[in-house]
Every structure is written in C-alpha cells, then in structure tokens.
C-alpha cells in the first residue's frame, strides 16, 4: 500500500478530461483488433504448414473481428460520416493516424485472404493476401498500446513500457483461443501453443505493469475494474490449464479456447476502465507530478539518490 498522500485540487475536480471514448466500442476494439491481428499471423503459419482447418478458422476470425472493429471505431466518432478524414494525413506522432493507415491496408487483405479461402477461388492471390495480412497483423495487434499510452491519462501513460507486451500477449491468447474453440484438437496444436504462451506473457506483463506503478496501481486494483482484471486472470489461468491438460478432448479444448478469449476481452476492458478511473480523480494526476517535482528539487539540492514519496502539500 502506498501511504495516503495529501494533495490540493480545485474542489476535487479532475485536472484532465476523461476520454470521450465509450464502452463497449473502444475496449471492444482493443480486443477485436488484437484478435484479428494475431489471427492473421497464425493463419499465415497454418496456411504455409498445410493446416487447412486452422488456417480457415484464423482467416475467417480475422475478417470477422476486423469488420466488427471498423464498425465500433466509426460508431465511436463524434462525426461518423467524416471517418474518411482519418486518411487525410499521415502522422507518426499520432498512433491513431498510424493505426488508421494500418487498418486501411490490413482490412482489405485480411478480407481477401478469408474470401479466397472460403470460396477456393484465386489460390495465389489468397496466399499473397494471407501473407500480407500476416505481415500487418502484429502491427494491428500492438499499435493500440501506443494509442492509449500516448495520452496524459496517468494509468495508461505510466504503463507505457509494459502495455505493448500485455497487448501482444493478450492478442496471441485470443487468436489461439479462437483456434482452440473452432478447430478439432490435432490441428489446433499451434493455436494451443500460441494461446498458452500468449496468456502467460499477458499475465506476467500485466503484473509487472501494475507492480511498477506504485500509487497508480490503485485504479487497476480497486473496485469493479479490479474485479474485471482478477476475473481475467482466473479465466486465463483456467484456459491455460485446460488447454495444456485437456488438449485431446474436443470439449475441454473448446472451453479452454473460449475462456482465453474471454480473458483477453476482460483484460482490455479492465485496462480501459482503469485509465478512465485514473483520469477522473485529480489525485492520480497531482500526486505523482508533485512527487516528481519534489524528487527533482531534492535531487538538485542533494545530488543523486533522492528519496521517493513524502507527504504532498
């Protein structure tokens, strides 16, 4: 526990504006984008190694997830009819701009990969599209970490170092989970391995993120958000155990896959809510900044090794 710091604020009003991003649009997109991107990588591998069933599941999953993503993103705009303005410029200083261009490239190739597979038409174009989507997929799955961390929202911004790994793990776990859910066990082996490894990365990176935050861990641990994130851990642990131990059973395998998918969604939801909570309370903005100023002042006065924390006036 971090000692309760005293701090000043203007009538308890937040310093920051809470993001206008809504649930389920935005946490849903964080989850679906991850699912789509990692599914496309899985699909490339499955396609090249001749696992037709898994490849089809992953390609169809990617198309479905990215289509829903596009709907969620456009629905979340204040002026949905102007969504095409996203491609008016390209800016590397804006993760949303980078993401829009990634999506504009990825969506059509992921669609083509799925349609060629499902119809059996144009196999060469299908292979090219599959590989193209596989190449862009990791970007789709992870850029969203930069998207939320490149804000002044304390719980997101201060988690910036670990967030991309949480998101990559969560995406891998979701894509593997979908493979487990919809593929018969022998062919689902790479999906199972990816799911288990992804869930492990997600768990470890998430723990590391929260443990490094100090007082800012609170929005991740308190109240409903804390409950969502603990549920995500339980679901992930259950899914991992089921996938490893019950890999030969179609039913256990499918349940494990569903559990991992749910875990990934809950992780994104919890992270989204933690950020919103940290923007709402001026404590999370003022106290860490005050501490930073105090450390800097002491550092300037005493040389290196200033003590952390202390009461905040």
């Amino acid at each position: 526990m971090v000692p309760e710091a005293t701090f000043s604020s203007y009538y308890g009003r937040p310093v920051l504006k809470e993001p206008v991003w809504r649930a389920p649009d935005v946490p849903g997109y964080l989850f679906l984008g991850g699912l789509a991107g990692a599914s496309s990588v899985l699909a490339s591998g499955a396609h090249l190694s001749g696992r037709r069933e898994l490849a089809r599941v992953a390609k169809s999953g990617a198309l479905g997830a990215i289509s829903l993503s596009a709907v969620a993103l456009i629905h979340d705009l204040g002026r949905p009819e102007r969504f095409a303005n996203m491609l008016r410029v390209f800016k590397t200083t804006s993760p949303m701009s980078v993401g829009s261009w990634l999506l504009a490239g990825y969506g059509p190739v992921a669609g083509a990969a799925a349609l060629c597979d499902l119809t059996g038409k144009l196999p060469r174009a299908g292979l090219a599209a599959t590989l193209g989507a596989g190449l862009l997929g990791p970007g789709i799955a992870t850029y969203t970490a930069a998207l939320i961390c490149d804000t002044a929202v304390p719980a997101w911004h201060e988690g910036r170092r670990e967030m991309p790994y949480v998101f990559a793990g969560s995406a891998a776990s979701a894509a593997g989970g979908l493979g487990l859910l919809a593929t018969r066990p022998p062919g689902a082996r790479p999906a199972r391995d990816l799911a288990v490894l992804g869930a492990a990365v997600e768990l470890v990176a998430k723990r590391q993120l929260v443990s490094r935050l100090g007082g800012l861990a609170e929005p991740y641990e308190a109240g409903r958000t804390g409950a969502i994130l603990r549920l995500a851990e339980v679901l992930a642990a259950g899914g991992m155990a089921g996938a490893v131990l019950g890999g030969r059973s179609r039913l256990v395998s499918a349940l494990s896959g569903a559990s991992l998918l749910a875990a990934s969604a809950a992780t994104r939801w919890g992270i989204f809510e933690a950020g919103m909570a940290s923007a709402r309370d001026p404590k999370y903005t003022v106290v860490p900044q005050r501490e930073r100023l105090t450390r800097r002042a002491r550092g300037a006065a005493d040389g290196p090794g200033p003590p952390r924390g202390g009461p905040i006036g």
Partner: protein
Amino acid sequence: MSDMPADPAGRAGYAAGHPPRVGFFTDTSVCIGCKACEVACKTWNEVPEDGLRLTGMSYDNSVGLGASTWRHVAFIERSVASGGTIPPEPPLLTGGLPVPPSSPEGGGPDVTGDIRWLMSSDVCKHCTEAGCLDVCPTGALFRTEFGTVVVQQDVCNGCGYCIPACPFGVIGRREGDGRAWKCTLCYDRIGSGLEPACAKACPTESIQFGPLDELRERAQSRVAELQRAGNGKAQLYLDGEGNGVGGAGAFFLLLDEPEVYGLPPDPVVPTRDLPTMWRHVALAAAGLAATAVALSLGRRR
C-alpha cells in the same frame, strides 16, 4: 532576463518572415473575478451556453475549461483563520501608468472578512509541444503562423483523441455537435491586428496579450515585485521553455501552487515518450510474429 520563446510556427514550416509568437500572460494577482473574459469570449466566438447552474464552488458556475468554455475563471476561498495571515496586498500593476491613490480602507478587492480570494482566468496554453495537435489523426488541429494551436471545424471528425492527450484537460467534445472545440486565441481577431476578446474585455489587465518574449519579461519583473512585497508563494507557471510542454503560449502568475487552481503541477506532453512507445510496440509486434510463425511452422507432426 527571460529566454527567447521557441518558434513552433517556424518548426511547422512557416517561412522566416512569419509573425512573432503571441500569447497570453494572465496575472492572477489583479484578477477581480468579473468574468468579463468568459462573456467576451463567448460573445465573440459564438460559443454556446455551457450550463446555468449553481455549483457550490464559490462564484464559479462554469466549472472548468471545455468544448464550450474557452475562458474559465476559478474562485478559491481561503479562510484566513485556517490559512494564517493575509499576505500583503499585491502592489498594483501600473504598466507605466501613474499609480492610483490607495483605497481608503486599506483592504484590497481580494479580502472580504476572514476570507482571502484567489481568482484566476484559465485558458488553452497553446503549447510549444502540443499533445492535442500531435495526436490529431485528421490534421484538423494545426499550428498557426502566430505559433498558436487551432481546430479546423470542417475537418474534425470527433475521434476524441486530442481530449486525453491534453495534460491540462483543456479541449473537449461538444455534446450534440460531436467535434472538438477549444480557444483559438481569437485567430480571426489577431489576424486583423486586434487583441483577443478576453484580453480586450479584461478591466484590470489581468489578461495581457502580446508577443511572448515581451510578456515573459513583464512577468519576470512582476513576480519579482510581488515576492519582494512578501508574497512568498507568488510564482510563474509555464513561463520559459524548461517545462514538460516546451513552453506555452499562455502562462500565468499564480499566488499559490498550480494544483490549487486545478492546474497540473508538472505537466508533460504525452508524445515526448512516443518514440519509446513505438520501440516497445515494434519489439512486441516482432515477438508476436516470430512466435506465432515459429509455433505453426515448427512442430509439424
């Protein structure tokens, strides 16, 4: 001596002859809380009503900056009983004019009974490193030739990214309109050689408009004057370049810590850390790609 302000307009590509960087110096020590700035801003810029309510926050009824509040006057009531003594009345800002005779009661406009008032008119900071502008995916937010930051309303698609990117919570999305709005530093007025509406309306010159280098010099001497007069907490907020936003086009003289006024004590533009974030994203993406491909290719049975 203040350092020369950064030249964000030049960095944005305006040719060398572009106008000097302009901004606001808000000297809260002479603010009387009249809200003329709020009214003038709304009138000139046709900003819609932002809520007619009693907030219980002293005389504040506009609560904070937002899509439809581009100037916000904060009112802080300090009980003298709990807060100790009343600091000496700040010397009047004369700006070269003759000093008016002091008021007969000896008490100034910010002392009422045992309450000490802090009042401050807040506004968009028009940062050198502007988070809102950096993250805007449509190019709706742009840098003007004056070094200010303005939203093009015909381009904004209401994605809302600028809103959490602002470390001051300035910009907001307007209900029923869907687009992001904030102070333009009266781009239309300053382009015609006029001063912004709020500065024009301010009766005490608490809001001063002008070239940033001049304002900074004036602010330095003013804060020194206040400190000499015994206002130990008088401080400049966001003056100079050495802050987390690389300098601001609107800076303040405060009589207490920034957070008392609802301002972040050490704001940092989030995009300063974006290169690191992209590096970690690239590593995570590469890891994901390598793992997924290796797992599906490697162990064929």
